[in-house]
């Protein structure tokens, strides 16, 4: 009953200065909303990295050529022979290697009817590429080893490319022309979704010799994609690859290899920890704005107490106990922070539906509860100083206040 009374006094007190109360609440609102939103952005980017780890495919190792430092001879490029050596080893004495896919990448413009579109990349490879890079066909089929052997002009296209070229039409069985070469579309890949860096769905994948024949020539490869047999054997697979390629490239010194094996999963794991740091930093910035909002409450409550000193004196003369005065002003400051925080939660959640700098925010439920609780605590904490000042005024001093 007394609590209800206090709440009514508090609402009355705040309503007496609507603009001021609204601005103070706005401070808390911005603080809470930014905590929720910035943490959601940080979290969203780490979720995106996590997704791209799964999108990359399991246990994949990428072999690419690297410049040889301190050597007179130019780096030997990766070739189909290297890939074949790896594949042979995989079949015989190297159980850590599950499959091998040589990769060439190029760009070009694809035509379908009178529609022209430039896909993000055109990839020439072996069927093993699909599993290694975690690309699944949603509709139609993969191209086969037979297609590779016969250098057939077939292609599997990503969902973005399919949308651009065919819109709602079914691409399977249709023919597209890339750089003068007609390709028959045999399959459309499942959508993976953009990860913020590039669009893995904007791609045309065709048999290696077909792409080499039409565009890149039969020279070097861009990469060799190797799938380890399991997560545990990636290190073993890596050393097998090094050993075999040192053989094919005739290198004795392990420090002078002319190729690089990158384990994308570990790379991305490192990037994930970077995004965590990023999230913490964002959270810290947001927390500061919440603190500033809290200081705003203290400021406004101090003004309120000064303005209402006479009223406090009247109430004391009527026998208001210390705790009632304390409670009244604490109720006001807490109400400011609760309403501000409530609206902040709302704003944060609404705001997180928009993508920010290419990142889709993912709200952390704990951050909502946490930001709300902290804001309310801040209201109590920052309101307690002015409230205490009000409550400990001597009645006669308060009454004499001008």
């Amino acid at each position: 009953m007394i609590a209800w009374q206090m709440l009514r006094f508090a609402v009355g007190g705040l309503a007496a200065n609507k603009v001021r109360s609204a601005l103070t609440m706005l401070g808390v609102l911005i603080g809470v909303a930014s905590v929720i939103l910035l943490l959601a952005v940080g979290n969203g980017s780490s979720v995106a990295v996590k997704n791209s780890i799964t999108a990359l495919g399991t246990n994949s190792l990428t072999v690419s050529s690297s410049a040889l430092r301190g050597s007179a001879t130019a780096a030997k490029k990766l070739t189909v022979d290297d890939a074949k050596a790896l594949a042979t080893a995989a079949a015989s004495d190297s159980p850590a290697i599950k499959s091998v896919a040589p990769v060439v990448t190029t760009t070009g413009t694809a035509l379908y009817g009178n529609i022209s579109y430039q896909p993000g990349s055109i990839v020439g490879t072996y069927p093993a590429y699909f599993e290694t890079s975690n690309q699944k066909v949603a509709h139609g089929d993969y191209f086969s080893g037979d297609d590779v052997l016969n250098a057939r002009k077939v292609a599997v296209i990503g969902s973005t490319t399919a949308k651009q070229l065919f819109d709602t039409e079914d691409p399977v069985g249709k023919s597209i022309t890339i750089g003068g070469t007609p390709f028959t579309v045999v399959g459309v890949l499942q959508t993976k979704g953009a990860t913020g860096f590039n669009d893995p769905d904007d791609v045309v994948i065709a048999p290696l010799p077909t792409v080499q024949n039409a565009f890149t020539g039969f020279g070097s490869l861009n990469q060799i994609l190797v799938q380890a047999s399991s997560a545990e054997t990636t290190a073993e697979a890596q050393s097998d690859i090094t050993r075999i390629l040192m053989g094919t490239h005739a290198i004795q010194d392990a420090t002078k290899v002319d190729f690089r094996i990158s384990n994308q999963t570990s790379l991305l794991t490192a990037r994930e920890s970077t995004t965590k740091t990023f999230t913490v930093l964002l959270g810290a910035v947001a927390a500061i704005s919440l603190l500033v909002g809290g200081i705003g409450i203290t400021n406004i409550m101090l003004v309120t107490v000064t303005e209402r000193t006479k009223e406090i004196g009247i109430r004391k003369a009527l026998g208001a106990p210390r705790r009632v005065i304390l409670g009244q002003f604490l109720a006001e400051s807490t109400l400011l922070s609760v309403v501000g925080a409530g609206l902040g939660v709302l704003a944060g959640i609404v705001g997180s539906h928009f993508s920010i700098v290419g990142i889709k925010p993912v709200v952390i439920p704990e951050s909502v509860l946490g930001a709300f609780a902290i804001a309310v605590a801040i209201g109590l904490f920052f309101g307690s100083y002015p409230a205490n000042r009000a409550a400990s005024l001597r009645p006669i001093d308060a009454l004499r206040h001008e």
Partner: protein
Amino acid sequence: MAAGKPPVIQIRRVTKSYGHGDATVHALRGPSAPDGSPLGVSLDIEEGDFVAVMGSSGSGKSTLMNILGCLDVPTAGRYLLDGIDVGHLDEGQLSLVRNRKIGFVFQSFNLVPRTTALAQVELPLAYAGVRAAERRRRALAALSLVGLGERAGHKPNQLSGGQQQRVAVARALVTSPAMLLADEPTGNLDSHSTEEVLGIIDRLNASGRTVVMITHEDEVARHAKRVIRLVDGAIISDVRQAEVDGPPPALAVEVGV
């Protein structure tokens, strides 16, 4: 009045001074000792009495009243209210005393801004922990007593000065305090409103409430049973105009006519 009942107010050698050293102002000093030091004011007020405190501006009337109302503490001396030494009470007990035993009326009304007359009068009851329904009933009764039953929903800025002061009186008497202290209650009022407010105070005193009222108008002091005059913080005269047990002079005249 039962014989032997102690006075409701007893002050003993009370002084109040502001400032230090040469700049000291003795707002209450009482008679001077042979060496010139203040001896302090002593005063007893019986239950049911109606005392007017008079004196020129700066003579220490408000200072005395604020001490009686437990709003201020004396520099020296003792104050017994209903036999209790107020100087020994802590902050919480003092707020109880202010709430239950004293009703204060100020010259400048001192209503809580933006608050309806009803809520205004309910305030002391709310601080006393009275339930909402009971609070409302008693507040409405107090407001009708001062003739403002119809104005319960009005805020201070919607009321005339006289009406505001009547709300303040209703607020002061709603807890049925032992005494009503009024510091120039009619100082800011026109003659008509003065009559209304004094009429209410007369009736309250007639019903047994002790009243102490500051005024500098003889016209107003005529309503009191006893008139005390202050000069420079000391009592220089103390005149009884009517018996403590009888009706206040204003009402007695009406009966006499």
